[in-house]
């Protein structure tokens, strides 16, 4: 069981990122979230969502899902963003295991772009 993300529905509002940050810190912060809307290609309006799972980084992009196994060698040709957050250093998604009614990112997504898979 995991999160299912619809990048085409996402409006990049960052509510999921803030809700996840609250789950980690009991405060509002954006640096510890394991789910992060990708908004660094602003002029191209290319947005998606990156999710850190236990053994993989999931990139939900408009063209589809990309799963990168953590520890696996990455394509050296791929351009990395200077502003990319250090996702690998963050806690993995635990589906908000201590929250009674499920993951907070699902609860706070205003456009229902995230669901349980």
């Amino acid at each position, binding site marked *: 069981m995991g999160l299912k993300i619809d990048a*085409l529905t996402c*409006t*990049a*509002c*960052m*509510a999921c990122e*803030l*809700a996840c940050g*609250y789950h980690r*810190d*009991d*405060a*509002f*912060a*954006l*640096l510890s979230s394991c789910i992060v809307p990708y*908004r*660094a*290609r*602003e*002029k*191209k*309006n*290319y*947005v998606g969502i990156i999710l850190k799972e236990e053994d993989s980084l999931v990139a939900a*992009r*408009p*063209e589809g899902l990309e799963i990168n196994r953590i520890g696996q060698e990455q394509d050296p040709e791929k351009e990395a*963003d*200077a*502003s990319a957050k250090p996702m690998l250093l963050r806690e993995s998604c635990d589906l908000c295991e201590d929250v009674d009614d499920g993951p*907070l990112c699902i*609860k*706070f997504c*205003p*456009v229902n772009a995230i669901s349980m898979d």
Partner: protein
Amino acid sequence: MENLASNKISIVDLATRNIIEEELDDDLVLEKIGGAGITKSLYDRFADEDPIVLGAGLLTGSLVPGSSLGVITAKSPLTGRVSHVPLSLDAGMELKYSGFDYIVIKGAADKPVYLWIHDGIADLNDAGDLWGKDVWAATDHIRDLMGDDLIQVLGIGEAGEKGSDLAQICINYWQSGDRMAFGNLFGKKRLKLIAIRGMGLLEIAEPEEFIEKCAGLLSAVKSGGAAGIRGIAAMAAAVGEEDLGGWLQPLTHKHMACFNTSVPTNTFVFLDEDPALLKETAVAEPGFLLTDISPLLKLKKLGLTASDACRVLKACATYGIDGASVAELSEKAGLTDPEAIKSSFPSLKGPVSSSGDAVFSPWAAIGNQEKDAWMRRQAVAYIFGIHPIFAQLAPELTEEKLLDISSIGTELELTSETLEEVIADITG
């Protein structure tokens, strides 16, 4: 103030380059609540030095739906009134997390400067390399320099540098709600831009109760009248301008939201790329983010195609001039050729009706609302930090609920009597 705040005000003197810091006292919050309540109070305190005051609302950057709004308060060179202009998209949120609650910028620099706000640090830097660059180039320059594409840039272009009556402070590459010519003020102060990055943390007095209330508000909004509204055309349709949808649809790429705002009030159009493209385009600058209904409607009424209208607005954003004023003056001058409209930018002068007759930017005036009710709702939005268009679309965010959740988040007793006083103060 310890909760929902960074507890810091920065006072920047452009003339001396001196920057001092003050704490955000609980007493000030108890008296003025936040957002425009406090920016107006700080404006009054430094009024002799023609200040520009930036701040975020009390609830900005929280999980309260629509909590995206920051505010700039200054005297409009266009109207002569002390006015409030919205900081939408992600700018208000980044300001809230920057380590400062409010920033007062007073005096004028003797040569171009920019202000870099991050991690509780405010730095004034030389902007010799930036002066003369258009808004897009200046945004690219500062992001490249800092190595961070998420920096929010409040900047001016040629219009502000050359003292245009209609100069606008743009947000990153896009038009903002600055209909008050605050871009002209930036230019007079030789302040090319303010770069903001927020990576701080906001404590909450009663976290579980606060989050529960946020979830309740979101649930109410999702089942309310705003549900299903997506983008500029849908908002126009909601106020009786149904034609915009069909006109704009062939260019529409995606509807985009401001921070934590349930209704995506912006629409990205592709002008030099297939709007249906799902993967990342190879075109560096394929289009434009539409953030303002008014100029779009006016340019459509002039007979421009959607593509030409969007290209005119993109040119407004690179030049740093208010698109609504450009559209209004083009109509008056009988200009209907997009190239002629763009060529007219340097010679355009106010006054214009696009600046409205209120202290709040008419950017958020959608539909035919009764003025007093609109003013009050704007005041509430600007105090608490709620997106001012969304605030009108979401009556579920009542004043009582916003006061209640603010008190829970701050542990301060904020009353309806205080709110009345603050509304009266900022609406003049």
